[in-house]
């Protein structure tokens, strides 16, 4: 699970959960896989990303490194920032661990890099 994916997941459809975002990450294995950088793609992605959630997610698994706490206003032209954003969004991967609903404490196991977000019928 890349942190871009974490940025997009919520547990709000669990009965009794109102926001369910962001999910807490408990990682037991994290990998960093280099991928081809595409500055245009990353800059178009930034407006779709909840940046503080991304920063906190990276920090919570020990990979905030030199990621800024806020996205700069000039992010479209800021190649250095876009490279850091690329790394945080699509290079850091949680291979195993759990995602945890911040309200209900429901755990969603991550194995083989795949979060299992399946709910039982009595949960929604």
């Amino acid at each position: 699970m890349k942190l871009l994916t974490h940025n997009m997941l919520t547990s709000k459809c669990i009965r009794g959960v109102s926001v369910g975002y962001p999910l807490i990450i408990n990682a037991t294995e994290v990998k960093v896989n280099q991928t081809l950088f595409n500055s245009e793609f990353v800059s178009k992605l930034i407006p779709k990303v909840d940046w503080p959630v991304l920063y906190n997610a990276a920090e919570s698994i020990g990979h905030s490194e030199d990621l800024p706490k806020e996205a700069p206003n000039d992010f479209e032209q800021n190649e250095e920032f876009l490279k850091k954003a690329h790394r945080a969004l699509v290079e850091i991967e949680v291979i195993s661990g759990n995602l945890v609903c911040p309200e209900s404490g429901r755990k969603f196991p991550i194995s083989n890099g795949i979060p299992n977000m399946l709910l039982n019928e009595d949960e929604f």
Partner: protein
Amino acid sequence: MGLPTPLYDLKDFPDVYEPSEDSHLFLDALEADQESILARSPKLACEIGSGSGILITGLAQLLKNSCAYFSTDINFSACRATAKTALINNSYVESVAMDLLGMFRSPFDVILFNPPYVVTESDEIMGRGLDRAYAGGCGGREIIDKFLATLPSMLSENGVCYLLLLKENNVEDIKEKIRGLGLKGRMVLERKIPGEHLFVFKYFR
């Protein structure tokens, strides 16, 4: 530029739907519509019920690294199969086990869905195994209708959804439904194969 059928290897995943004529029709529809997809310059794409993963991998081969690719399936083996198919084809798909798109908070620019469209008894929609890849319940519509109800909230402003349908799903009735949801629809391809008349439709705002 043609869209080759992505390679796949399901030997470790016996409970995952093997690509068939419906899958190939879907790939042909994506290929036929590639210019229109590229013109939307999508950034987030997701396939629902990805199974082997050849559709989202095919899309990834079309759009390359200008877009991020996701997939969902209720069968965890299928999630693994999709991730593997992407890798075999030098692509990358973020696979997540979930029902439809229910655990995503934000909309997608491209949604692909080859749904369980076969007309079956409602009680055949049970469990998370291979049967779920085709069992569509009453009119083959039970999963399709559940999906369509969520589509307006999961499709981005400039987004497009590709959906495969069977004639018996009552395509005319689905057209009405799409209008009722405030979306536009167009048929991309249709094909008659032994026993099935299949369509790929696209929906957008």
